[in-house]
């Protein structure tokens, strides 16, 4: 860790001692996905694959409609975690794309403490995270490792 990181000593992390496996993070509830959301993410992310924004292209590729970028949902999962701890505490984030996320779906991001451990003096927790639609269909699942400095 360099001095850039050490400068952030005021960072507010939850009390590691009080955390228990199974503890839930405050969920992140997103409004229904609009086509406008996908257009914004197309521009901001630099992922210009037309299948996410151009319904004519999507249909020509055999899809009934455009669908959300998987990495937009990944960004929401990252927000779930950075809402809970400062970004500096996140050591890793790994996601698997399980199902397409469609226009109009209302996505919830959830996370729970799966493991808590102290390895070589570094207190950490492993989080299980997931995004799902209103029917509970999992779209993305993954893990995040958070370490206390």
């Amino acid at each position, binding site marked *: 860790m360099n001095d850039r990181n050490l400068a952030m000593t*005021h960072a507010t992390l939850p009390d590691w001692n009080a955390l228990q496996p199974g503890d839930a993070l405050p969920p992140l509830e997103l409004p229904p996905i609009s086509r406008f959301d996908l257009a914004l993410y197309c521009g*901001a*992310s630099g992922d210009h694959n037309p299948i996410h924004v151009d319904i004519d292209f999507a249909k020509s590729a055999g899809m009934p409609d455009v669908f959300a970028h*998987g990495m937009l949902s990944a960004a929401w999962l990252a927000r779930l975690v950075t809402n809970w701890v400062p970004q500096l505490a996140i050591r*890793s*984030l*790994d996601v*698997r794309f399980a199902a397409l996320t469609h226009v109009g779906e209302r996505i919830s991001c959830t996370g729970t403490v799966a493991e808590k451990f102290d390895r070589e003096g570094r207190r950490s927790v492993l989080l299980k995270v997931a995004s799902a639609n209103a029917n509970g269909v999992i779209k993305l699942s993954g893990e995040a490792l958070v370490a206390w400095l």
Partner: protein
Amino acid sequence: MIDRRHIGHTLPPFQVEVEKGRLRFFAKATGQTDPIYTDEAAARDAGHPGLPVPPTFFFCLEMEAPNPAAIRELLGMDYRSLLHGEQGFSYYTMAYAGDTLTFRQRIEDIYDKKNGALEFVVRKTRVSNQQGELVAELRCVTVVRNQ
């Protein structure tokens, strides 16, 4: 089938400058309301030297490669048959607006399942900053659906 001899292939490194306008646009597009990601004064008050690069934005910066299709072309993959299967990030130090990041991509593995009906290409990317410090490592698994 994708030629397995490409396992271990490294691509020419490339550099990307982190622009604060892009970071603000990304915050808007992902619904990020924490001001440290859009307001430099708020970022400084939180101990950051500038606007932080959020966790998944490294994937976007990686797409700024001179030829984002280089691996696809090298391996002869048809993009219409591709799915993004997994994406991983390991973080070592923070990156900020104004940094110039160097991306080093390597084809880590190529394997198949279901008698070749599905092929998997694993790309690993090391990201370092202008001080030569390792910032992050990315792991991208692309799935190829063969007919």
